[in-house]
């Protein structure tokens, strides 16, 4: 079994077997994180650039740790798009990186499709660390991983994603990842934040939170982005919180042994109350730990050879 592509651009179109291979590998690699020396020499000599066009703390650190624990050579390149827009084009930047003999590029950008664009102009393996509102495949994988670790299965679980579905790349990757492994996925959010024809992605869409939560096993609470309020998708955060906030009262609709997830960073008291976020059913910090293992698995599986000497 191997991955069909040497890039990780999206979970859309990935088979159950491919996702399972990544998760199984991550499970094995997670053990390294418990060793006295949390580093293995696997990717020695492999050059990885973290190309971040959008501010990110946790994803970048998580990737960087994953790379370092596999002994890759890591270079960080952060740029605000505003300055890049004025100066060098993305293509020129990428060509420069290519000229430095880099093997893998981890890229985050606020425009959808940039990781694909990179595959068209360089030879390195490209890993999408979030492109616009398109996908964030490693987040999707770590979410599936965390749920699988707890329940030992994905098939048949009822997963609800709550929040601004329209602008969320996490929602999209989660939808593809969980549905590929047989979960029953719903999305829930204000009607202005549910994109057109979302049901065609194989999910049910709700605007009534209680209805969506009925009988659910996993609730993934998305961050409500304060900066996206232009265009009046929401009258106020207060109103959002009242209608869609995950509070303790609402949890009794869930199945026993339910799970609360959040990709972070949390707006405490807006989309989720602190007592739920920090409660016994929350796996929010496990997600962070698992993020490193999942990213190590992705790096490992994509580091092999096409284009290299046999």
């Amino acid at each position, binding site marked *: 079994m191997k991955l069909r592509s040497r890039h990780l651009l999206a979970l859309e179109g990935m088979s159950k077997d491919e996702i399972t291979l990544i998760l199984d590998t991550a499970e094995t690699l997670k053990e390294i994180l418990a060793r006295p020396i949390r580093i293995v020499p696997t990717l020695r000599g492999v050059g990885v650039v973290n190309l971040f066009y959008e501010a990110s703390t946790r994803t970048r650190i998580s990737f960087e740790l994953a790379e370092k624990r596999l002994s890759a050579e890591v270079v960080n390149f952060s740029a605000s798009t505003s300055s890049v827009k004025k100066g060098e084009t993305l*293509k020129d930047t990428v060509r420069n990186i290519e000229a430095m003999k880099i093997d893998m590029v981890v890229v985050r950008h606020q425009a959808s499709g940039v990781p694909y664009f990179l595959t068209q102009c360089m030879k390195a393996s490209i890993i999408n660390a979030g492109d*616009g509102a398109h996908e964030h495949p490693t987040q999707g994988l770590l979410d599936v991983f965390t749920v699988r670790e707890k329940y030992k299965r994905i098939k048949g679980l009822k997963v609800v994603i709550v929040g601004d579905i329209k602008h969320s790349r996490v929602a999209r990757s989660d939808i593809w990842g969980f549905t590929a492994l047989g979960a029953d996925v719903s999305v829930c959010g204000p009607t202005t934040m549910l994109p*057109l024809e979302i049901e065609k992605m194989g999910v049910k869409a709700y605007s009534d939170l209680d209805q969506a939560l009925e009988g659910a096993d996993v609730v993934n609470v998305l961050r409500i982005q304060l900066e996206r309020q232009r265009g009046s998708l929401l009258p106020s955060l207060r109103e959002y919180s009242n209608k869609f906030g995950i509070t303790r009262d609402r949890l009794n609709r869930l199945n026993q042994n339910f799970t609360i997830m959040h990709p972070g960073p949390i707006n405490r008291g807006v989309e989720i109350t602190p007592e739920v976020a920090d409660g016994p059913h929350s796996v929010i910090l496990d997600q962070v730990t698992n993020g490193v293992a999942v990213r190590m698995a992705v790096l490992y599986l994509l580091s092999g050879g096409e284009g290299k000497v046999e």
Partner: protein
Amino acid sequence: MNNYEKEKGVVSEFDLAIVGGRVIDPESKTDRIADIFIRDGVIKRIEKPKSKLGAKETIDAKEMIVVPGLIDMHTHLREPGREDEETIYTGSCAAVAGGFTSVCCMPNTHPPIDNQETVKFVYEKAKQAKCKVYPIGCITKNQMGEELTEIYDLVQAGVVAISDDGKPVSDPQVMRNALEYCRMFDLPVISHCEDLNLSGSGVMHEGFVSTSLGMSGIPSVAEEIMVARDIKLAEFTKAHLHIAHVSTEGSVELIRQAKKRGIKVTCEATPHHFSLTHEIIRTFDTNAKVNPPLRSKKDVEAIKKGLADGTIDCIATDHAPHSIEEKDVEFDFAPCGMVGLETALGLVVTELIEKKILSWSQAIAKLTINPAKILNLNGGRIKKNFPADITIIHPKTLWVVDPTKFQSKSKNSPFGKKRLRGKVFCTIVGGEVRSRE
């Protein structure tokens, strides 16, 4: 083969003869094998085959289709201002290569065609062009949507219509005034229908593809709301409204109903809007980023139906050249537009004629006589004493689109590698062969 000159004693009283071809002239409902004789740039005789007339030069059009020179009523030639992307000359080369003998150039140049001087500049440059070039003037000064241009001045200088294409006229009062004012000159007002508040930061059609790619969408209603508004204004002002690049099912239906009510509204559709859907954006090809965006399958079907039932009068390219540097960027940042002059006819034949949506005569009408009538151009006909603007088409030839071979200065076409049927064999402008395979 030229049998005519070999005939003893026959004087070549004509400059050019096109013989043996199937002549289709939609206006006169002609569709028969005939020989055409041209002198001094004018069609002089249309004869039954094997006539004894002779000409200095003869084109054998056997198995070809001979039609009036194609007219593109919606072209961006970029000159003045962006001569790196296209000039009036290179655009005209692309036009004749694509079978067009006339193009109408949109005024969103730098500076825009919003004054007599710029109109004169275009006409001056057009003297060197391979095809006829008719400028369209701006509706508002600098296309700002605020003050009307000196429309009478523009008419005097020879504009054939006015439009702020590329931008809508957002203020309905300004649009009302433009329509009302133009009624004096019997001048069509070409409307780019887009509500900018609704299209917002959208970069593609809002639908399942934008949902799965996470791209901001331009909803169909952003176009339809302004189509509806402009139809109401046309009804109210009794002026001639022409709606550019119709792209949605709803727009087609609004125009269909308006025509039924006798409102003076005409419209056009582009080849890309009847050949491509938003699915192509899944490859993030910035050459497929256009405005209005490529829509859903349902919309494409509606455009085809609108073409078939006559709701859509014309096929126009919206030829919009952009440099590689501008297009080879993140999808969100790429400018809108694709070149279209050199693929239009192939797409019409492949997508409409071969698929029995339109007959040859219907299709050719939308590329010739219909735009000619809308813009009051002296052309679009194969008729005695009319200008000898003629396009000869090889209807069966199968060819593969190769943008690198385009005459246009820009290569931004998403149709690269596509196989098309129907190729231009020869383009004749004013009796002169301007392009020949």
